[in-house]
């Protein structure tokens, strides 16, 4: 799997042609007094949302770098903001990171300047979504799976397969799943269907859910058309999905641990699982802007992001997994090994991380269906075509 991904990425790098040889920072000087970060909502907390969750104040006191955060709601917004400039760091997901590297908006990281680099999960250290030709373009930040959330009053035992959202069936409470399940309202959901087929229809020969040839792609779309009959509304916004679980009678859906944790905190009867087919997931990376105005503060922050309570408390806050596994056990924050297990730390190998589908893939030049077609076809599927 990993080699395949590497192959795919190298192929991508080859199309992008020469990756710019931007000089990386050689030494960290004194902080510039400021740091501008583009981040997902909830990723940079200074105790203002909830007093218990603060991983900025101490950094500001220790380094004198005042942290300014611009939150972005989608990967596209992140890429757009980085293209505009004026920012030092971005917490980019796998769908944005390679685009940022290809667009030369981010610079290589000198890992020797980050003392805690060695503590980074070895499974993430050379991950293909931010490492191109052996050059690291960032520091891993957080990762997590897209889990299957289910209502525990309907499912006494956790569902063992994603078929509860893909195939019409009678659920344990005796009623059909029709109109009671949801799916993600983004074309990337095609990958979830492909992953399901990878397990149930091995003769299709799918090796990666993000690299599909025409036949594999068609099979995935057919499965999704079947799913359309089961889904009343696709979910797009985390809070609308939570509302649908509460008021719309939805009992099972792919989701982020974030929603599961929030609903459980409200004592709503839900739980989550990663079924036998595995799951897709996201892995975010702190990336440094090619023209960062405050590179020293940025390097200090990257070290802070790995060594402080951030890894621990953010994982609790967001329902994610730390990039530094030690954070699960060393008590630097609120994270415990139990929470890490619940968030899917041990399921790394069963998670296929989000990557942008491109035409040139491990199956050959132009062999795979590129992302823009995923978008237009998924629109058709939701529209009932």
């Amino acid at each position: 799997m990993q080699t395949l991904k590497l192959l795919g990425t190298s192929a991508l790098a080859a199309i992008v042609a020469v990756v710019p040889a931007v000089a990386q920072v050689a030494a960290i000087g004194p902080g510039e007094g400021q740091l501008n970060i583009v981040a997902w909502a909830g990723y940079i907390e200074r105790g203002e949302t909830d007093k218990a969750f603060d991983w900025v104040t101490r950094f500001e006191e220790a380094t004198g770098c005042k942290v300014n955060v611009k939150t972005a709601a989608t990967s596209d917004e992140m890429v757009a903001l980085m293209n505009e400039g004026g920012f030092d760091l971005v917490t980019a997901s796998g769908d944005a990171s390679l685009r940022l590297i290809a667009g030369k908006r981010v610079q290589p990281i000198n890992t020797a300047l980050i003392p805690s680099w060695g503590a980074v999960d070895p499974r993430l250290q050379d991950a293909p979504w931010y490492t191109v030709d052996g050059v690291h373009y960032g520091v891993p930040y957080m990762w997590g799976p897209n889990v299957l959330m289910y209502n525990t009053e309907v499912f006494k035992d956790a569902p063992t397969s994603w078929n509860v959202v893909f195939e019409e069936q009678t659920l344990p409470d005796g009623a059909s799943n029709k109109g009671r399940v949801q799916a993600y309202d983004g074309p990337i959901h095609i990958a979830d269907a492909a992953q399901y087929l990878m397990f149930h229809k091995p003769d299709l020969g799918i090796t990666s859910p993000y690299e599909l040839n025409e036949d594999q792609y068609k099979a995935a779309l057919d499965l999704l058309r079947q799913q359309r009959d089961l889904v009343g509304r696709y979910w797009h916004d985390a809070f609308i999905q939570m509302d649908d679980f509460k008021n719309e009678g939805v009992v099972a859906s792919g989701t982020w641990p974030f929603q599961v944790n929030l609903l459980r905190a409200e004592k709503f009867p839900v739980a989550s699982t990663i079924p036998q087919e595995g799951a897709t997931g996201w892995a975010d990376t702190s990336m440094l802007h090619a023209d960062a105005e405050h590179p020293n503060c940025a390097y200090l922050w990257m070290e802070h992001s790995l060594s402080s309570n951030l890894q621990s408390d953010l994982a609790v806050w967001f329902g994610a997994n730390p990039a530094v596994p030690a954070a699960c056990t060393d008590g630097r924050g609120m994270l415990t090994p139990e929470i890490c297990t619940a968030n899917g730390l041990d399921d790394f190998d069963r998670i296929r991380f989000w990557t942008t589908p491109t035409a040139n893939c491990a199956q050959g030049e132009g062999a795979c269906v590129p992302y823009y077609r995923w978008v237009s076809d998924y629109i058709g599927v939701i529209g009932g075509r």
Partner: protein
Amino acid sequence: MMGFRPVTLPVRGPGDRLTALFWRRPDLLLVLLLAPPLLWLGVVYLGSLAALLLQSFYSIDEFSGLVVQEFTLKTYLELLRPSNFDILLRTVGMAAAVTLGCAVIAFPIAYYAARYARGRWKAAFYLGVMLPLWSSYLVKVYAWKLILSKEGIVTWATDAAGASAVLNAVLALPVIGGNSLSTSYIGTWIVFVYVWLPYMILPMQAALERVPQSMLEASADLGATRAQTLRRVILPLALPGVIAGSIFTFSLTLGDYIIPQIIGSSRLFIGQAVYTLQGTAGNIPLAAAFAVVPIAVMLVYLALAKRMGAFDAL
């Protein structure tokens, strides 16, 4: 004999000289005053529209997914693909249904307000119509999501009234029905009608107020029944107002992308398609082509409205 006293003219400052310049060249002042709004309209507003139009004539390279900057009509042909054409039909159909619904509901309200409400009642009426506009659009939409949801107050009320069979029968209707009101086209329609209703009531009321009382009296004197007066006198005279209101409800529905995302069956409307296509897909030409459709539809609509006399009272 009186001696000559030299006349001392006041010293002219730069302000005086400027005034003199404008007095001598009045067109200069005109140009200076008009330049900023014209620049705004021409460059920022029409310029961006032109850029949009230009993009829609480009196409996306099937192989690499990159935008090819060569003129072609390929992208417009893609609009005719069944899944894309569905989006156009769905949006225009919804806009027409919403406009019709608004017109039917707004007419009695506007008629009452224009012809019967007086004094304090008139103020109360204005407040009643305007009040929803003061609260956030999103808050209203989310509130409706809760009201219409499967376990919401509508279901509860129909259950309590023993009418759940009626609700289920409505939801079982093909196409417009669904799992619950909040996941069906009916729900989307209800919320659209609610949100845009004030924009229909206000111009309608203005038009109805302009219908002279004397004409109604003349109609009655000539022996017309109330229904005939409504049909032959009031409606034709109020039509420009109805059409003015319908321009709002129709165009606002055409462009909206938030309501169908929160309430409905997730099937895309034009606004959502534009949002999705220009985003991760990077298919800006198709997004631009989609965006041109409401413009074209509205141009036709406005041309028709002009013929019906909607702008005569401007």
